């Protein structure tokens, strides 16, 4: 980035602006992280009062703060289900869109339209439909349906992008040598898209794990983690709230780290195989 010629003032200004933006994104996160490590007399604002893991521990005690562990379990399971369905459905749809077929435009616009329908509408509508059909309203049924309307369009767009850059020569070669559709997919296509599939999976999981509005009216009598935390904001006024924030953020960071690491490994392996 360091250029030999004199950098104009405006360039420094832009760098400064970008740095401020990153600070804007991470500053609050760091504040919450620090404040969750206070002593037992800690409050919601700076300065830090003591240092301990008291509040982190408090998250797992049930008396202080709602039932975090069970809510986490639900959000985690739901995230996994959403992830698997999102990956499978979007890869299948991506494969279909490699050929022009009659009605493909309609499918495309139906999928994209899901992004521009206000979230609260999806929540309300799914709830109404489940009610009318006498289906159980639970985090694993109605909330699952609500989440898929949000994760599938993103995954679909990403798959279109991936298959758009995909060189069909490899598969054609496999087919010419007599490989079946499924052999061609698992042996040729899947290894080539594997690292992108992990990216789509990560996106599916985190979008679901953090989703609030598209869960809010349709999770039944039990809460997912975001709903549980939202409920706590009204009655928990101790750093336990921040401790919960710190824990879930660390969890998200871990997932992102694992996914990025795996993606990089897969791409390296792929590069090696291609020589």
């Amino acid at each position, binding site marked *: *980035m360091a250029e030999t010629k004199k950098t104009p003032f405006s*360039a420094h200004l*832009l*760098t400064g*602006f*970008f740095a401020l933006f*990153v600070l804007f*994104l*991470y500053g*609050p*996160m760091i*504040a*919450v992280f620090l*404040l969750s490590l206070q002593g037992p007399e800690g409050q*919601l*604002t*700076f300065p830090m009062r003591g240092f301990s893991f008291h509040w982190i521990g408090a998250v797992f005690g049930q008396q202080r703060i709602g039932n975090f562990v069970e809510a986490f379990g639900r959000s985690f399971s739901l995230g996994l289900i959403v992830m698997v369905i999102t990956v*499978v*459905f979007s890869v*299948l749809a991506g494969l*279909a*869109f490699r050929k*022009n077929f009659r009605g493909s435009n309609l499918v495309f616009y139906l*999928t994209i*339209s899901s992004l521009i329908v*206000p979230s*609260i*509408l*999806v929540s*309300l*509508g799914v709830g*109404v*439909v489940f009610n009318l059909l006498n289906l159980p309203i639970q985090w694993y049924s109605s909330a699952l*349906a609500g989440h*898929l*309307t949000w994760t*599938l369009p993103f995954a679909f767009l990403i798959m279109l992008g991936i298959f758009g*850059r995909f*060189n069909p020569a490899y598969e*054609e070669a496999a087919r010419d040598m007599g490989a079946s559709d499924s052999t061609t997919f698992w042996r040729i296509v899947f290894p080539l898209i594997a690292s992108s599939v992990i990216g789509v999976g990560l*996106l599916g999981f*985190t979008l679901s794990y953090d989703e*609030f*509005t598209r869960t809010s*009216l349709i999770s039944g009598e039990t809460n997912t983690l*975001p709903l549980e*935390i*939202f409920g706590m*904001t009204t009655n928990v006024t101790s750093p336990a709230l*921040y401790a*919960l*924030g710190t824990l*879930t*953020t660390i969890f*998200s*960071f871990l997932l*992102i780290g694992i996914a990025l690491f795996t993606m990089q490994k897969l*791409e390296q392996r*792929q590069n090696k195989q*291609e020589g």
Partner: protein
Amino acid sequence: MQGTLDQAPSQPIASKQRSSIDWRPYLLVAPQTITFLFALVLPILAIFTISFWNFNGFTSVPGFTLNNYLGIFSSPVYLKTYLNTFKFAFLVWLVCVLISYPVAYYLAFRIKNSKWQTIWFLICTVPFLTSNIIRMISWIPFLGREGLINKALMGLHLTNQPVEMFLFSDFSVVLAMVHLYALFMVAPIFNSMMRIDRALIAAAEDLGASAFEIQKRIILPLAAPGVAIGTIFVVTLVMGEFATMRLMSGGKASSVGYLIKNQIDSLQYPMAAANAVVLLAITLMIVFGILRIVDIRKQI
């Protein structure tokens, strides 16, 4: 990012069997399409139907009445709520554009090394993969009565008493929403800017165009589709949510999303449905308005 795949453009495979229809694409898109029919189209139809039902004070009664809609358009309270929602959508959109354009420009044009470009873009993306609710809460240490901003202001003797307006105000709602949704503006603008042919800019520079002229005549017009996609995202997100409004305004400000949520809590489904239909209609009008101005199809 997809360095492993060949860059050769994919060529449509000439179909060998013209005589019979190939059913495979239909089978492949079926799971996704059925999901959307069930979880999107059917719910919207149901909402539309219920918006004409009666509400007798306790429960919804099937029927056909326009009273729910008349109620919305004749009530000053509802109209004010709609105006308030537009106000927030506009403010959040404006701030998002003003922040995201320079950020995307910096990422796309100032960082020359593509590896660092990916890394910095990821750094900007990671916070958006963490919990929205937690990200709202994380403003309390800054904005509260005892928060850092008030402490700083009082330390500098700019004010003697803590300023109440930072938390639980329009300001905190806009701030939190920008914090939550800015990436939805940054990413599409960045994507558009990365497609700009660098030779265009080099040519303009050689011809003596000023930095401002290059922005105005090359980069801005070519980044416009990205701004349009970002606008669609941000406006829809702000219109469809209620959590930020509830949490960051301390229940003071209202939005249509919040209104719908309250109506459902008091079981007034027909009113909630009518509001949802109006909200959807307005959102679609905005989206189609944007699509008329800017052609975004080439961006996908």
